[in-house]
């Protein structure tokens, strides 16, 4: 056997191996090196470079989610417990407990799949592209979008993308402090990332809607770029299989040197010596051709399985497809961008816009014709076998000869230490008191609340013609929507079927600074109440989790991560909403200008997808007329810890908002049932800024005023402060506008038991566009022109980008 470019492993110490590997950006630890060494000692040969690289890719944090699947010993105060597999015990356990028959494929495929009507299914995936976006915002975001679109394309036998969605965490664009050499200013990151998402989505003709942005200076060196795609596929195309004898066919872009070490590089802290090859520029037009050809071949049932080339390129795509049987690959058949690539480079290159298919030999000719008609290249790279081995050759040279079992199951599990100390419950302290009107103005102008129109207007959210509820709402199409509703009639091809779906997100790292458990709970609650507001069915919601954390090698960070995962579990169980897919991105920390480690705040993004039974019943958040009743659903508690109000006042401490899923879900279901009957004119969720911000946004979007009476608010009886009622961020609450003649019918949807969500008439809409709030003592707490509030809300982002 000829072994090229040998990688001396057999007679080195683990420490030497790690040093040797780190120089090549392999990101393997000592225990993993020992496992590789033991395996090859038994084989009595040195591994080839490509074998080591393949193992490093497949075992990387990025691909195998080592932290989430390894045992963790968690110390909480004096108690210690062992978590055998965090992912199984939290996310998967919650989904198994929910046991929903409409979940068609969870955690297995490239995306989660849920049923959509009788004949269709929706594939949903969101992931991050943080490290590349930190280095090159435009290219990083663009290839991130391209990658998640391919995830959906490579889900089942291929889904047609019908919605792109995004969420970002950046440093403030007006950040004035110092930055280390080579780091981009947050303003530039924001511009570049938005342009990248825009260019890829718009060029592929996929509407981009339903996003969010969070600004916090701790993200200045490690921006978070979450991108997601929803795809539509026929039910029959959900299952895929590979049979020995099927041909391995690569389709799409050519293979070049780009993107080498992407997966291993993203599994380490971002350091100065990042490989430039990890950054690429996407080619949206090439991916569009691939998409069109693939879906045509799918409908002619020309292939049996498909997956995308993401991190790890061919090595992980072919390795995954052939995991249960085996594969023989001949790399010299791969079309190349430049001549002279070594075998291991072709095998591991992460060149964009490529997919791998398993094609029965009799269909090859027809498949090639379909792809050629779209100007999309294909090449036969080999065949799937029944040997259980991964055998890769490049001409006469043997590149890889690995046992699939060792590749996929050989990863040694290392126990990790985690610790969690609950934060002391401190009374709110610090900051200066301000009048409520000023707090409200400052909250609306705060970067985390202000208008995102500058971003949204760059995205094409109308293409495909199915965006029923748009990201910007209200009489002037500039109010902040809770979620978007997509009626995929163009993809379904049936204009008499009004089934639609909605997508929303929940994210709030400020709660996580106090307690990641309650942050995760609040995020799930936020995503579901956003869905409820537009008319989606909260009882049919499917969730995606995306954890972004600093280094899990720090027990405190890992402890916080465990807390967040447990919050996700309890929220999913409580709301009966299963997780269907997810992703994690760890090691989001870098050295700042003074050489200190700057970790990001632990962040969970919950993305939720739910069907809207009838697109014609979907609801927007703007007030529809004067004299309508305003109902507040849900109880208000004194929960200002981590709230926007505290941030604006410079105050710390306080109770973190705590979701109570059973009660909240009861309220959501009641509102949804009322919406189906057409009883709800508008609905908006109470999140950052609480009741005051929600009422102001509804008012200035609809250009009608409102008069609220705080004494009517269902509340914890210990609250005596108007400010608390106005600005508290207790989850599970919605503000709903109802016509006076439908009030009785509306209220009949709400239960009366102790566990039912309270619903109270807290005021009414008025013709005069003024927000007036009457306090507990009957005094006027706040009386503000909505025009002035809207001006403040709109001026922030354009002002910061100047």
């Amino acid at each position, binding site marked *: 056997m000829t072994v090229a470019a040998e990688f001396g492993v057999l007679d080195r110490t683990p420490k030497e191996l790690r040093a040797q590997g780190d120089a090549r950006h392999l990101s393997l630890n000592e225990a993993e090196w020992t496992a590789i060494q033991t395996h090859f000692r038994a084989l009595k040969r040195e591994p080839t470079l490509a074998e080591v690289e393949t193992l490093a890719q497949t075992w990387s944090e990025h691909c195998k989610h080592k932290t989430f699947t390894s045992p963790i010993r968690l110390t909480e105060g004096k108690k210690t417990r062992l978590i055998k597999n965090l992912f199984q015990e939290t996310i998967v356990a919650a989904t198994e407990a929910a046991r929903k028959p409409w979940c068609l494929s969870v955690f297995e495929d490239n995306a989660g799949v849920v049923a959509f009507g009788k004949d269709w299914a929706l594939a949903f995936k969101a992931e991050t592209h943080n490290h590349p976006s930190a*280095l090159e915002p435009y290219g990083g975001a663009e290839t991130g979008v391209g990658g998640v679109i391919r995830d959906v394309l490579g889900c089942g036998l291929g889904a047609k993308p019908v919605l792109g969605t995004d969420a970002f965490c950046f440093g403030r664009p007006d950040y004035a402090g110092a930055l280390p050499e080579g780091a981009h200013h947050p303003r530039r990151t924001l511009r570049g990332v938005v342009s990248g998402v825009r260019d890829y989505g718009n060029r592929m003709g996929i509407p981009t809607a339903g996003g969010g942005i969070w600004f916090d200076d701790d993200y200045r060196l490690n921006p978070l770029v979450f991108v997601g795609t929803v795809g539509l596929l026929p039910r029959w195309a959900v299952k895929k299989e590979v049979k020995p004898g099927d041909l391995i066919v690569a389709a799409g872009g050519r293979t070049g040197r780009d993107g080498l070490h992407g997966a291993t590089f993203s599994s380490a802290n971002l350091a100065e010596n990042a490989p*430039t090859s990890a950054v690429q*520029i996407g*080619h949206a037009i090439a991916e569009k051709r691939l998409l069109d050809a693939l879906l045509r071949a799918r409908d002619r049932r020309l292939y049996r399985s498909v997956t995308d080339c993401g991190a790890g390129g061919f090595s992980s795509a072919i390795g995954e497809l052939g995991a249960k049987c085996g594969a023989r690959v001949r790399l010299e058949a791969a079309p190349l*961008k430049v001549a002279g690539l070594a075998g291991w480079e072709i095998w591991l290159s992460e060149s964009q816009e490529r997919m791998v298919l398993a094609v029965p030999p009799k269909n090859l000719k027809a498949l090639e014709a379909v792809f050629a008609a779209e100007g999309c290249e294909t090449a036969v790279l080999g065949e799937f076998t029944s040997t259980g081995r991964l055998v890769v050759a490049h001409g006469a040279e043997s590149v890889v000869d690995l046992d699939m079992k060792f590749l996929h199951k050989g990863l040694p599990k290392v126990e990790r230490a985690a610790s969690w100390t609950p934060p002391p419950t401190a009374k709110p302290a610090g900051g200066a008191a301000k009048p409520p009107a000023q707090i409200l103005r400052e909250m609306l102008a705060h970067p985390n609340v202000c208008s995102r129109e500058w971003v949204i207007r760059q995205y094409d959210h109308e293409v495909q013609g199915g965006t029923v509820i748009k990201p910007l709402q209200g009489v002037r199409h500039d109010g902040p929507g809770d979620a978007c509703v997509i009626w995929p009639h163009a993809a379904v091809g049936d204009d008499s079927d009004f089934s639609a779906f909605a997508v929303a997100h929940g994210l709030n790292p400020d709660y996580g600074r106090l307690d990641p458990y309650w942050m995760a709970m609040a995020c799930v609650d936020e995503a579901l109440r956003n869905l409820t507001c537009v008319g989606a069915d909260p009882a049919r919601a499917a969730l995606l989790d995306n954890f972004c954390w600093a280094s899990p090698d720090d027990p405190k960070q890992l402890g916080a991560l465990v807390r967040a995962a447990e919050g996700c579990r309890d929220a999913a169980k409580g709301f009966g909403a299963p997780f269907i897919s997810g992703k994690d991105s760890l090691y989001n920390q870098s050295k700042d200008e003074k050489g200190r480690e700057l970790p990001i705040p632990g962040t969970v993004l919950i993305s939720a997808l739910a069907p809207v039974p009838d697109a014609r019943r979907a609801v927007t958040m703007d007030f529809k007329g004067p004299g309508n009743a305003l109902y507040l659903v849900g109880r208000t508690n004194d929960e200002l810890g981590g709230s926007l109000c505290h941030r604006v006042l410079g105050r710390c401490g306080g109770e973190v908002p705590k979701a109570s899923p059973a009660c909240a879900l009861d309220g959501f279901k009641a509102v949804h049932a009322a919406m189906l009957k057409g009883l709800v004119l508008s609905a908006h969720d109470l999140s950052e800024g609480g009741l005051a911000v929600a009422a102001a946004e509804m008012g200035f979007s609809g250009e009608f005023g409102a008069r609220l009476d705080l004494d009517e608010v269902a509340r914890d009886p210990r609250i005596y402060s108007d400010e608390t009622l106005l600005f508290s961020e207790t989850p599970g609450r919605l503000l709903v506008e109802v016509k006076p003649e439908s009030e009785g019918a509306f209220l009949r949807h709400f239960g009366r038991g102790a566990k039912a969500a309270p619903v109270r008439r807290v005021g009414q809409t008025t013709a005069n566009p003024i927000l007036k709030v009457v306090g507990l003592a009957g005094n006027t707490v706040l009386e503000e022109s909505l025009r002035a509030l809207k001006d403040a809300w709109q001026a922030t982002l354009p002002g910061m980008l100047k």
Partner: protein
Amino acid sequence: MSARPMPMATHLIEVRLRPEFSDAEGASALQLLQAEGLSSLKEARVSRLYRIQGPITATQVQQAARDLLCDPITQEHRVVVPVPAPLNGMNFWRVEVWLKPSVHDPVGDTIVSAIADMGLPRPEAARCALVYRLSGRAAKPALERAVARALANPLIHDAVVSEAHP
């Protein structure tokens, strides 16, 4: 068929907006450069520069430039002949931002196949650059620094700053 090989050549074509149109891209670039401290810059215009290499003649490249790369209503094109930059007292600048040779250029790829689709000889390679034509006083090192922070990312771009004709 004659076996005579076509000569290999490198052509540079610049496509710019006609001067009577206002240039939004240029205005945005000017704003970014001014935010980096170059407040004395007065105007920026953006054009695209294509480097096409392969067995294709100057006339054929002209044809591709006219029919493919240029929108004749709003744009004009010219063949760029490299000449030594005249010194103009630091009042006019030309900034070319190229993707590094190691970075894949999707626009270039598309041009290669589009030229072949026109029935012209298929070029070996094509690359596309953004050109910023700036007027206003600036010192070269300051301009280079601002370009690296606002218009180009040194990780993937090569930026060339030179004094230029007005």
